[in-house]
């Protein structure tokens, strides 16, 4: 091979194909949309686009850990509304925001603990256990609220909906802090590195002296806590709490994680950064098609088509990469 080709080959070798594909598709969408929909490139749309997917983004961080450990967590769809309702109840009884929020997050982590405990003691697939817990939570949420939205938060709480930190809404700040935390931890912290070992080869992890059950407990509790945080932020944003929040959020979150390159079939493959990119991709797609003016049902078709295209393209690039090398 010629030297020129060698440099190209070396470059291709270093690029993460999955990320490259997502970027490519996003660039295409942004280019096409910005020429077609005048509002697409506006600051207002950017803010809306981020807001559209911020709750899923937060939950995707925890879901990444769960999927990396070789599991799955469907409880988030029940925990998100539950946490908003619990917050409304606590604050309705006169508790100030901070202690109420802390209590909600702790309470929901406890649900994560119970989920994992049932998974372990009944030795059931996490899909089954978490789906059951989600169903229970849905029933609890409906029972508490009687099917209608809860409002009547104090004014100081309502003010948080429009509060900004460094010019950003509260939810963005929370996400940035959490994402940074998990990027650093999964890269450098022993307890988080163990998630990869346990997901990659549970048997080997056990024989390597890793307490695998502790790792599982940690990831399910984190996932539940993040869903609780998303629930609190939802309650802040809409000054309401409702059983209807977070319906099907589990599927959107899992799709986000998968698009970001975390393997659903083999634990231990993937990263938080990939999930963040997947989040951006999903946010762009969800926003672009609403902006596009396509008929509403065609939007759903397109969302599916682009998800498949993302996967196919990265497969194709992988093939090209092997060919070049």
């Amino acid at each position: 091979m010629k030297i020129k080709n060698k440099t190209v080959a070396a470059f291709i070798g270093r690029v993460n194909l999955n990320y490259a594909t997502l970027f490519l598709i996003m660039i295409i969408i942004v280019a096409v949309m910005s020429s077609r929909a005048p509002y697409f490139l506006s600051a207002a749309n950017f803010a809306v686009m981020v807001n559209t997917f911020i709750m899923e983004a937060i939950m995707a961080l925890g879901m990444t850990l769960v999927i990396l450990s070789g599991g799955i967590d469907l409880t988030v769809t029940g925990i998100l509304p539950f946490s908003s309702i619990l917050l409304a109840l606590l604050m309705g009884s006169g508790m100030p925001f901070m202690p109420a929020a802390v209590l909600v997050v702790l309470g929901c982590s406890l649900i994560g603990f119970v989920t994992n405990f049932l998974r372990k003691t009944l030795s059931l697939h996490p899909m089954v256990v978490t789906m059951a817990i989600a169903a229970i939570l849905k029933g609890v949420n409906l029972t508490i609220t009687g099917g209608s939205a809860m409002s009547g938060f104090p004014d100081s709480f309502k003010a948080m909906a429009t509060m900004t930190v460094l010019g950003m809404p509260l939810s963005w700040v929370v996400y940035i802090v959490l994402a940074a935390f998990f990027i650093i931890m999964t890269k450098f912290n022993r307890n988080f590195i163990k998630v990869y070992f346990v997901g990659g080869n549970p048997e080997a992890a056990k024989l390597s002296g890793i307490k695998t059950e502790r790792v599982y407990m940690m990831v399910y509790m984190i996932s539940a806590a993040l869903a609780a945080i998303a629930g609190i932020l939802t309650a802040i944003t809409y000054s309401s709490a409702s059983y209807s929040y977070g319906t099907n959020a589990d599927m959107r979150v899992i799709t986000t994680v998968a698009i970001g390159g975390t393997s659903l079939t083999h634990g231990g493959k993937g990263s938080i950064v990939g999930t963040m990119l997947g989040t951006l991709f999903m946010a762009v797609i969800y926003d672009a098609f609403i902006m596009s003016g396509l008929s509403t049902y065609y939007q759903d078709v397109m969302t599916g088509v682009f998800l498949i295209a993302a996967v196919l393209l990265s497969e194709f690039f992988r093939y090209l990469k092997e060919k070049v090398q």
Partner: protein
Amino acid sequence: MSVLELKNITKSFGANKVLTDVNMQFEKGEIHSIIGENGAGKSTLMKIIGGIYRADSGEVILDGKPIVMHSPIEAYAHGIGIVHQELSIVGNMTVAQNVFVNCEPVYKAGFINWKKMNSDAKAALAEVGADIDPTEIAGNLSVGMQQIVEIAKVIAKKVRILILDEPTSALSDKEADRLFEILDDLKKKGVSIIFISHKLNEIIRISDKVSVLRDGVRTGTLTRDEMDEATIIRMMVGRDLGRLYPPRASSRDGQVILSSKGLSRKNKFNNIDFSLKKGEILGVFGLVGAGRTEVALSVFGADGLDEGTVYLNGEEISFRSPSDAVAHGVCYLSEDRKISGLFVDMEVRENVVSACLRSVCSRAGFLNQGMISQITDDYIKELDVHPSDCSRFRIRNLSGGNQQKILFAKWLAAKPSVLIVDEPTRGVDVGAKSMIHSILRRLAESGMAVMMISSELPEILGVSDRVMVMSEGRKTAEFEAEGLTEETVMNAVFSMDGGLK
């Protein structure tokens, strides 16, 4: 005329040339072995014959006519069948279903004719001399039996050329003997057998011819009366290996580190006593299923114990979990590196520190990346892992022998005082094998106590200082290795009168 002839076969994967101008002839009713180190191109060559790969250039000539195959199904149509290295038995189906997978006898309407399937399976199994109930669930059979089912599966397709890729790597000696009888029988029926193996003694024992591959080139073909170990090894590695095994322990009076008394676990093993001394290698020999691995796992805390006591440095101890054992300096290097040893999708460096995460972390739990790189590079150098810059490679991309070395590195990094190794050289080529043997010896000399579980008798005799023999869950004998003969050990294995009740 040869039944099958390979002419100038060349094959590359990307820039990697795996086979170069390989020529071979296979005759009717003959066992023709192919031997070579890992990566010499044996498996690729077999896959070309079996229709899985196509050669870049060269011809496969069957009965004098060149053939081109696009899939294993076409190969079967030509009467060529492969028994692969990895068993392709579906564990939860019956033996008969496995034998006739994808070619089930059916009634006209397309429903499976179970009666015919079971009787045909019975016949196919009888043809390879096995008396296995075709309605048995295949997963319940021993690995050896499964291998025989696998062969029956291929034979049932009326093959003329049977290729076996490392068929004995999972078999005990007794099961292997059984397999060789079957092969001999098939040979007499006129089947041409192509036999691939690492094990020199097997090859010499059964082959009519042996061809040696080195780095994708055929270095020679020997006939029955030309074969001997030294010649074959020279042709394989291109040099003399010198002494096959490392020297024995320089000193035998180290103190006992790990010992046990009366270890028992229901249906697994019974009343096992052993002691491991500092600086010494204890070989544990037995056939597959003798309970050796089970004892090790129980001592290690991965499985429970029903009875008995384990002593560490003279004090009674009971490891509650593997992490407990590792924390006390007892490590277990597992039999199957892919299933329970390594994280194949992770980087080499991550694997190396996976059992000593605590020691490469700050107090707050953050990893010291520089230290990890340092440790990894040190072990890569010390264990001579190839390529030498593989620190960031994924395990999946290393060869079997190098994977095995990383597995050692992982446990060495944990700085254990006791190392239990289970089948350390399974599936490893001759060069890497002697490397691993000398590593084990070096570890012992550095003050570690080593327990080596192995089914290869020459390895046990060559490497160990003491040998413990197990059979059917019991300890049957213990010997000093110096001057010990294979006969003595085998007698100890079979002297058992009763098994585990």
